[in-house]
């Protein structure tokens, strides 16, 4: 090599270049060491979080059955329709929105809006279009003509189905979509944004049992969030089956009688509740008119909801517990027990009813007939108003009888459960009103009058009760003095058929009343049927009970169904001792309440509840024996 060429080679610069190579690779290696060795685990976790996502797998909701296992609520397969925006060409979006909208009965705008929102969020992920489960025919229409429905996906999901929807809706309630606020509270418990939960009734109260344990699925997903494969799976556990104390046979007998009465225009609304006085188990609970809870389970439409709300018979209210009514003559049991327990009266306390009315301070107080001389049993059996006016507040017809007074009546009424919710395992229970002088002063700023006492004695005036309260009070008399906690939960069974331990609610209290006085009441109640106010021809059962007729609300104008408003309500509360005796052995107690009885019926002054009670109990218990 020539000298000038050699000298051209700047050797020191080559050495510098070599050093630069070394420095650069050292830097890269050091950084790699930090990333891969020092922080390798951290980044490994991040890469796993990237690709692995744990998706919840919803569990099927548990069923609801009656005490014999008859299925009241179950799940049937339905379908969810969703759209994957990336598979839907934009030019066909409008066309699809219209076709899908008309098929699913939703506006095409809401379809477009959902798709467009999802295009921005994550076009690879399906967005649910059907707001409610879609039946098989519609799902088939979509899948069979897939070319008409680009990007549309149909997935199975289950719909809650209630076999006897309207009959059991007041008890069972329904499920519905979770709200934002509920989700905020419940997401920690595994609730998902598109979950349904029990909104009312048993579905709501026993949500904890009915909702299953959700499983999960670990999937690998790519950067576009598409699912590649399932890596691990934890199967969901089906929810527990809730067994009710209800006996479907009795429920249907009760419903048939009450419905017939409504159909024959004998009354516009009706309630029937039956329970076992010995333990508080509710055997039947009917509230007419009801509503079909399947409408809610599949997603109620606004017109349907408007119609329910416009009905002034309030079909959405379970009237057995949700509304309060004057107790009428059935309340005489309370007045009687108050006087007996306080000692102001006994079985031989006699009132000679010599006229249809008497006056106090110029105000007349009426009875329905001139009874003549009545002792306690006959006074109760013939439902003499003057007899119970006298026990409550004294009267000119029996100057030697001291009235027990409104405070004592209120005290024993509360002991019997009036004025407070019974604590039944259903939401929205009404507590009723149990007035006393202090209550009236606080509420109306007016002093209590003797007239108030008289009205209260026969269950008119301020007293307001729920049918269940009334039933429970009579059940306490029937069982010898235990005020039970009425309840509907009989059993809980897990997916494998094993019973989950549940404890029945303890009784509310023991009545602070003597066994003899309670026996006297049972004797008087039996006399109501055998020779009194509620005569039952060809009676096959030793039914005891008490009738009541109350005037309430409007007795003019028409209701939303076009019927004359009469304002007469009828009660019959009953219990059936094991034998025709006065022992506290009744296995069944029942209340029937008919609302707004028809004009013709009232002219005959027949209480429709009595006949219905006889027919129902004879059919139910007769077949049992």
């Amino acid at each position: 090599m020539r000298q000038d060429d050699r000298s051209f080679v700047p050797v020191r610069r080559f050495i510098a270049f070599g050093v630069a190579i070394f420095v650069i690779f050292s830097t890269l290696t050091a950084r790699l060491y930090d990333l891969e060795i020092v922080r390798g685990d951290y980044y490994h976790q991040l890469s796993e979080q990237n690709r692995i996502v744990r998706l919840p797998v919803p569990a099927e909701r548990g069923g609801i059955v009656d005490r014999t296992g008859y299925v009241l609520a179950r799940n049937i397969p339905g379908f969810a329709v969703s759209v994957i925006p990336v598979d839907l060409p934009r030019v066909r979006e409008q066309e699809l929105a219209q076709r899908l909208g008309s098929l699913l009965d939703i506006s095409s705008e809401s379809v477009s809006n959902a798709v467009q929102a999802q295009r921005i969020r994550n076009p690879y992920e399906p967005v649910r279009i059907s707001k409610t489960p879609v039946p098989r025919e519609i799902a088939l229409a979509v899948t069979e003509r897939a070319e008409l429905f680009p990007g549309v996906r149909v997935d199975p999901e289950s719909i809650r189905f209630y076999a006897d929807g309207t009959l059991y809706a007041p008890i069972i309630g329904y499920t519905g979509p979770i709200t934002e606020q509920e989700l905020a509270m419940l997401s920690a418990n595994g609730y998902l944004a598109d979950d349904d939960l029990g909104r009312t009734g048993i579905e709501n109260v026993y949500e904890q049992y009915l909702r299953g344990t959700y499983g999960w699925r670990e999937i690998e997903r790519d950067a576009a969030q598409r699912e590649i494969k399932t890596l691990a799976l934890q199967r969901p556990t089906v929810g527990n089956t809730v067994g009710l104390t209800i006996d479907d046979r009795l429920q249907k007998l009760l419903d048939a009688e009450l419905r017939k009465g409504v159909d024959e225009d004998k009354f516009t609304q009706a309630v029937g509740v039956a329970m076992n006085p010995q333990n508080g188990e509710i055997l039947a609970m009917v509230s007419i008119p009801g509503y079909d809870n399947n409408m809610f389970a599949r997603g109620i439409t606004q017109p349907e909801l408007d119609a329910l709300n416009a009905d002034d018979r309030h079909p959405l209210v379970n009237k057995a517990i949700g509304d309060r009514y004057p107790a009428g003559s059935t309340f005489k049991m309370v007045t009687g027990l108050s006087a007996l327990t306080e000692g102001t009266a006994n079985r031989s306390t006699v009132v000679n009813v010599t006229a249809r009315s008497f006056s106090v301070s110029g105000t007349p107080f009426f009875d329905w007939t001139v009874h003549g001389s009545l002792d306690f049993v006959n006074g109760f059996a013939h439902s003499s108003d003057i007899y119970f006016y006298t026990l409550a507040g004294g009267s000119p017809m029996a100057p030697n009888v001291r009235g027990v007074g409104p405070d004592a009546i209120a005290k024993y009424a509360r002991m019997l459960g009036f004025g407070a919710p019974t604590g039944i395992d259903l939401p929205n229970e009404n507590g009723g009103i149990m007035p006393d002088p202090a209550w009236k002063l606080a509420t109306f700023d007016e002093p209590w009058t003797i007239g108030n006492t008289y009205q209260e004695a026969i269950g008119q005036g301020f007293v307001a009760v729920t049918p269940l309260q009334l039933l429970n009070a009579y059940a306490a008399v029937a069982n010898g003095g235990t005020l039970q906690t009425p309840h509907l939960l009989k059993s809980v069974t897990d997916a494998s058929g094993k019973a989950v331990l549940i404890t029945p609610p303890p009784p509310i209290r023991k009545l602070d009343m003597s066994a003899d006085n309670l026996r006297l009441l049972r004797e008087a109640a039996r006399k109501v049927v055998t020779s009194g106010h509620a005569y039952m021809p060809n009676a096959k059962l030793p039914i005891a009970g008490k009738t009541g007729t109350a005037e309430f609300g409007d007795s003019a104008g028409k209701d939303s169904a076009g019927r004359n408003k009469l304002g007469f309500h009828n009660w019959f509360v009953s219990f059936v001792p094991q034998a025709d005796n006065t022992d506290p052995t009744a296995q069944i107690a029942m209340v029937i309440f008919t609302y707004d009885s028809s004009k013709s019926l009232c002219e005959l002054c027949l209480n429709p509840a009595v006949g219905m009670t006889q027919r129902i109990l004879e059919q139910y218990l007769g077949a049992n024996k």
Partner: protein
Amino acid sequence: MSVRAMNLARPATPLHDRPAPRRWTQIDPMLLIVTVLLIGYGLVMTYSTTAETRTFTGDPMQFVIRGALWAAIGMAAMAAVAVFDYAWLGAFAPLLYVFTLGLLSVVLAIGTSSLGAQRSVNIAGLSFQFSEVAKVLMIIVLAKFFADRRAAVGSPVTMLLGLALLAPAVLLVYRQPDLGTSLVFIAIFFGIAFLAGARIWQLVALVAIAAASFPVVWSLLKDYQRARLSAFLDPYSDPQGAGWNIIQSLIAVGSGGATGKGLTAGTQSPLGYLPIAESDFVFSGLAEDLGFAGAVILFALYMVLLIAALRVALRAKDPFGILIGARIATMLLFQIMVNVGMAISLMPVTGIPLPFISHGGSSLVSICFALGVLQSISMRREPEGP
């Protein structure tokens, strides 16, 4: 009759004042072996990052087969170039320069757009990245320029003329737009000027001018280029957007750990978290699959390659050979530094392929061409000692 002795020595060519015999024994073995190893490593990585077709359909081996084809073409090109005397390249340097600018103009005119850049030209179903070819050709052009002006290499005039030569090519590449490759051109220029003996103060002055003009350059950058630079400084400012590539690349690299997840077992690139995993971010996939160990092995191969290239340059018999060798080494070093640096967030994101490892025929064949030139230089050097 007197017989004149035949002059059996080869006649001097127009290129050399003395004949430059080819000596096969002087092939640089280290350079050759490391080249083959790196090509093999590249094929393995192509297999690893594309074979497990979890998200794509099609023949899982198609990328490997295509890579092997390109490797064969590259090796053939290398051999062919090595046979020719590199001095011819110097003779045709002006022509090569015109050809280079022509290629880059063609790309601008008819190139197909990929990720918003006009970078490749489709010919007969194959896509060519002319800027890769242009890179190597510009090495020759600039080497020839500095070699011819070696006497005046310290003069500012030389420096400015060199820059003037470079500028059209840089602008054409930048217009594609390919910021990364235009930076490679500039780096090559600095490398060669440095090794050619340019005054240090001149180089420093150039860097200073570049730094001073940064606001102007910034305003000339495209929005996505600015976003990339911002994302480099703080990837988490836009984790779903400009920062996404950087974050996902760091996750891929870091999750490889000491020995990696194993060939084809990486998750970041097959699942699409790592974009352009077979070219720009190929190193991230390598580090994920083969871990720290795999990366260090790659670095070792690169260092051997660079040292071998520098050695060829040092031993070259003329300034043209020296400068070509040095420039090839510079180009490789810069590309490695920028590509790896990008994958591990030491450099902003630019679309520069990683030599041998990135999938792409144009890059591989261009590099093979350059290494063929190196072997040509090596074979024509003066034999060492007696």
